[in-house]
């Protein structure tokens, strides 16, 4: 089992290496086989391993490969750790990852830089697996930064357009802010507990810290900072909408299914620490609540199909944070899994739509695609229904329901959290079906029929099935998380169900029944302002521009001109003067140089001789 465990991250890594080293000599088919095959094999291995794991009574598996580095007390090994949580994450990453890879082999077939795409994607999968399987925080951080790097590389995949490069940089810099916080948190943790291995650390923390100790709170806050950056939560959510510059399968894999949920995983993995820090845990819930509301609100008036989904992703991760904050760890992971299914599906579907519309992103220029793209419509509808949490039918309903019930049962602020979650659910249902109605209903704007090969259809169909039925998959997590007693009031369930249906109905009323053109020119001023405020993601970018960028640029500009340069110029002038002086010695007569050396030795020896 240890060997199998190591095989899982090493297979995609090997794929990356093969593609990076020998990919240029492979034909496109070969690249596809290596790229998708390596992840496929990893998925098979993961499935086999999961079967063995559950068979063996779900006991954690530890696989040690060798030491990484040791310095004093600090030691980090290449060790993987597999428990119930890691199994689920591994299955999701390799499974969804493989489906997206398979989809990409056909979807990206016209790309010139096919090989680079798959190489990065494979590297990403390897890093993500390293993240979730890491036994110690240093290895986890390696994966954490690895996925960040791949995210950067893939957002900027079409690097000829400077805007994409800008988006990639933005994602990198913003998540880096969170990473610094995380790193500080890890350092602090090490200083306090002298340990990087996760399991001993989690076991030792309750003995070392009292609940609510200030240092513990600080650590939890710093870790939260890292999670917030990676998972695009308030206030670091600004990078994710821009990250849509990458190819759609990348958005599906990295910015929906896996990487952005790494923050959720991190907090779930370190949940004993948060249980020791009630303030920080409450903060998690509040961050989640604020994010889910803000992002849903912003999603309401987006026009770009992928940006809608991006804000939706931020919002859904907000739900997961909400669940984490109220201690419903299992519910958070459950929602993570279902979200991975339906959001990956939606992004892939969106990619299909965009491609079909010849790279048109504006939903108001689409319409009636139901007729020309029946297959895509079908699976997209399944995904959107799951996102909107259509009651009892979809996976999203079950997971979101768990979160809402857990929020309602929270000891503090339960009502507020539940109410916020329900309002968010309403908005979610509304914007997801606003998208569906706008894009797929109404008069067709094109008569071109869709054509899709099995490599596109099969993954989409599979994801569609999972989006609907995924809620029925049992996720045993009882060995990792403590039991959580959520409220099971039927009234609350019905309320949540009703809200989802109401949101869909509302969407039908505003966007299905009649078709808004998306034209805002004749709107009243307040509405236009509101719309623009919403569309800009509630103006976070502008605020950061004023608060951070402008002062930074001003300072930089102030320093660029004079003060420092003068000092530097002085150094240059002095050196030039000295150089002019010494250059005369450089006369090209080697024997003179030798003479200089000998004279120098003589001079040096004089004190020795006379003392």
């Amino acid at each position, binding site marked *: 089992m240890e060997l199998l465990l190591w095989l899982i991250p090493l297979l995609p890594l090997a794929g990356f290496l093969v593609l990076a080293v020998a990919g240029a000599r492979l034909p496109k088919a070969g690249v596809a086989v290596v790229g998708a095959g390596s992840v496929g094999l990893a998925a098979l291995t993961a499935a086999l391993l999961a079967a063995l794991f559950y068979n063996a009574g779900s006991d954690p598996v530890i696989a040690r490969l060798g030491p990484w580095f040791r310095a004093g007390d600090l030691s980090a090994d290449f060790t993987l750790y597999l428990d119930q949580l890691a199994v689920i994450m591994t299955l999701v990453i390799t499974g969804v990852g493989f489906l997206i890879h398979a989809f990409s082999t056909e979807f990206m077939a016209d790309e010139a830089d096919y090989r680079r795409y798959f190489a990065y994607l494979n590297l990403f999968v390897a890093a993500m697996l390293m993240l979730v399987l890491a036994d110690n925080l240093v290895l986890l951080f390696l994966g954490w930064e690895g996925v960040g790097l791949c995210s950067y590389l893939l957002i900027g995949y079409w690097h000829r357009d400077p805007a994409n490069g800008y988006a990639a940089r933005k994602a990198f810099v913003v998540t880096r802010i969170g990473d610094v916080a995380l790193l500080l948190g890890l350092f602090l943790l090490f200083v306090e507990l002298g340990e990087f291995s996760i399991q001993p650390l989690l076991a030792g923390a309750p003995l070392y810290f009292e609940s609510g100790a200030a240092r513990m709170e600080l650590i939890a806050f710093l870790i939260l900072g890292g999670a917030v950056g990676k998972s695009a939560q308030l206030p670091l959510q600004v990078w994710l909408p821009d990250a849509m510059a990458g190819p759609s399968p990348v958005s599906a894999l990295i910015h929906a299914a896996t990487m952005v949920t790494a923050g959720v995983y991190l907090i779930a993995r370190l949940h004993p620490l948060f249980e020791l820090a009630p303030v920080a845990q409450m903060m998690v819930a509040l961050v989640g609540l604020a994010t889910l509301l803000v992002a849903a609100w912003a999603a309401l008036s987006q026009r770009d199909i992928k940006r809608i989904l991006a804000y939706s992703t931020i919002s859904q991760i907000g739900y997961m944070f909400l669940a984490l904050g109220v201690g419903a760890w299992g519910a958070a992971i459950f929602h993570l899994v279902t979200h991975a299914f339906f959001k990956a599906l939606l992004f892939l579907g969106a990619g299909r739509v965009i491609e079909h519309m010849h790279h048109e992103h504006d939903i108001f220029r689409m319409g009636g695609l139901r007729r020309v793209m029946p297959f895509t419509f079908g699976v997209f509808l399944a995904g959107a229904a799951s996102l909107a949490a259509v009651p009892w039918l979809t996976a999203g309903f079950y997971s979101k329901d768990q979160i809402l019930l857990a929020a309602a049962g929270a000891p503090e602020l339960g009502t507020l959290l539940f109410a916020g979650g329900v309002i968010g659910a309403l908005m979610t249902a509304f914007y997801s079906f606003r998208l569906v109605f706008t894009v797929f209903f109404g008069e067709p704007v094109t008569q071109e029929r869709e054509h899709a090969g099995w490599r596109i259809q099969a993954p989409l169909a599979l994801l569609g099935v999972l989006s609907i039925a995924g809620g029925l998959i049992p996720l045993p997590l009882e060995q990792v998380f403590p039991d959580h007693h959520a409220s099971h009031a039927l009234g609350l369930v019905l309320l949540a169900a009703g809200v989802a249906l109401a949101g869909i109905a509302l969407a039908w009323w505003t966007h299905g029944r009649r078709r808004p053109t998306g034209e805002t020119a004749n709107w009243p001023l307040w509405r236009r302002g509101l719309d623009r405020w919403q569309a800009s993601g509630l103006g976070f970018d502008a605020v950061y521009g004023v608060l951070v960028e402008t002062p930074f640029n001003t300072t930089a500009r102030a320093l660029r001109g004079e003060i420092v340069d003068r000092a530097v110029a002085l150094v240059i002038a002095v050196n030039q003067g000295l150089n002019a002086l010494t250059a005369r010695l450089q006369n090209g007569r080697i024997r003179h140089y030798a*003479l200089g050396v*000998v*004279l120098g*030795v*003589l001079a040096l*020896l*004089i004190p*020795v*001789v006379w003392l």
Partner: protein
Amino acid sequence: MTVVFYSTAVIAILATLLVVTGRHAVHALLYLVVSLFAVAVLFYLMGAPFAAALEIIIYAGAIMVLFVFVIMMLNLGRADMEQEERWLAPTTWLGPAVLSAVLLGQWLWVLRQGGGGDITGEIVGARELGIALFSQYLLAVEMAGLLLLAALVGAFHLGRKRREDDE
């Protein structure tokens, strides 16, 4: 041992002197080889047989042969010897000779006091040398390897360029 040591030392000094003042390149080289030989004998006497062997195999056997090889290719003739004669006028060599003499004087002055102890001639062989090289001096060995590689590449480059010029 003492007698051999001092007589060999004298041979080394004389041979070296002939190298420095020689007019004929190949003869000077052979004197240099003699000098190296003498030093090798000294090494052996001092109890460093491996160093002695290296001195002959590598210094005399390889490096100096390389010199001979190049001089053969240069094909120096009688004209070159006459040129050397002119270049070695007393005005040229007097200054450096005095300078070196001063340098030597300083050293001898320092060494004159003695008290440095004796060389007993106990043998430190290849085994100890190898162990030292590959334990505490491992990094230096790697750097020496790098240096040789650089020299190899450099010499190859210089040699290659010459051939391109011919074409």
